[in-house]
């Protein structure tokens, strides 16, 4: 099996509430097709760094374009990939 779905984990600052999660996802969904990403999940634990974990799923031959993700997130709020 050559092409498989894998996930990439990004740490995003500024996303704390459910409202912020939904706003961030709406902005990401606008560009997902262009980025080759098909699914995203935020996990907001509130512990440690104060960042939220963003898990995106895509084919293993796709490299997540963090700059494009950041551009999309910036349209939704003060959100940014920090790791």
């Amino acid at each position, binding site marked *: 099996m050559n092409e498989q779905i894998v996930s990439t984990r990004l740490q995003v600052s500024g996303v704390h509430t459910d409202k912020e999660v939904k706003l961030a996802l709406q902005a990401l*969904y606008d560009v*997902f097709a262009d980025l080759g990403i098909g*699914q995203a999940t935020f996990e*907001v634990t509130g512990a440690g760094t104060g960042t939220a974990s963003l898990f995106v*799923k895509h084919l293993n031959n796709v490299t997540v374009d963090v700059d494009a993700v950041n551009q999309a997130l910036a349209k939704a709020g003060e959100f940014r990939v920090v790791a």
Partner: protein
Amino acid sequence: MNTNPDFPFWLQATHLINFVLIGMLLRSGWEILSSLPRLWWSNDSAPGKEWLRFTKRKLPKEEGVYTSLMDEKRLSPLIALPGRENIGLGRHWHGLSVMLWVLNGVVYVVLLFATGLWQRIIPTSWDVIPKAWDSFVIYAGFGVPSLEHFQPYDALQMLGYTFVIFILAPFMILTGLAMSPAIRSRYPWYVKFWGGHQGARSLHFIAMVLMAGFIVMHVSLVFLVHREQNVVHMVFGDVDTARYAQGLVIMIATIVAVIVFWIALSYWTLADRPRAHRFLVFFTEIGRKIFLNWMRPRGAVQTTYTDRDISEFHWTNGLPPTSEESPEWIAARDNNWEGYTITIGDDLNGTSKVLTLDDIRQLPQTSYIATHTCMQGWSATSRWSGVRLTDLMALLGPKPEGANYVLVDSYGLAQKMIDNRPREPFYTVLDLQTAAEDDTILAIERNGEPLDLHLGAPARMRVESNHGYKMVKWVRSIRWIADYAEYGDGRGGTREDSALQALNGRI
């Protein structure tokens, strides 16, 4: 006060109630549509085949890489009920509203005929056609038909009201019902009559547009054509226009109050979504119990849908487990499913049995054509083959004493938790009647081939009387349980917990 026999109190009351409920129906319908703002006539909801869409988002045609949830749009609570990507609650509001709307409509129609007032609305002579044309010509010239045209309605009104009450409203009800999995799995011919799930969905949308257009025109004409008479008729049931000013104030205040009520419902819902879920599902479950729970699917014996109806494209929600989610599933996948196991168990007594795919293949197999529908609106028709859940669970022996449900969970994780906490395994709960249905199976083949990875390989649930959120993919375990309140957030499944869908997914 000169009481007008054409506008009795029951007519005023049902008219006002209809106004309140039709607004709730439209607003909750827009919430549902915003979840997948595309419409198809084809049987596979394939990207690029839409005949209408309300989004600029791209939907690639590549199957198994993108999910339909990424097409969900956000509507303001001022527009939709409740708004802000809450399709589960939007569906419940739609369900409650339609139950009350139909009840109000039945009361109205019964009284209309019982009192003889139907003769004021339903044309009884072909003369209505030329008279309606005369009125139309006057309106088209920005004129107003004289008061004598209205006895109490003019011919154009009679045709319009007859169409809306006796054709459009029933049409909306019938096409709405055609989107119920319980009805589809029991009466597939009925759904095919409407052009399948997508045909019914598109027709329902067109009817909504007509209804919304009628409302705009109807309300406009109330204020533009003989306003003084209309106001006293509607507010007081009176014919004396001396109270016009008072009636106008009451009417406008009522309209404002209703609009405030509509919006308040949205914010009440959003303020505590689980509370709204409890409230709404309590009432909508009454409708499901009366009208849908007794319907049993008959996929293996029905002849309406055949292999010729199989869809070319199949959407998915939730992509396959990754190595972080389930190393066991990944290892089995990479080893041609060697080592893949499903545990069937009894949580009440702590017994369990581990099955391999070969064990499952040894059991009696069933096969049928069925249409999968997601509560978002997409659908796809496939031939599903596998083992009836009853045969599978029989390997454990008789149903344990005290077992009231069957819980199925997945090697994959939920796509979202309601509070955005770390994801937990996807699961769902079936009641005993649903679990025992002939078309509730553990499927291991689709269209005669092993399942695709994104559609649940190597084994997934099929529960044909319900929407897709009850059909767990990449199944890990199936267990008898006493009460679903003890699992997850206690609402009976991942989509019930996170998206506030109903445990009963029959509509």
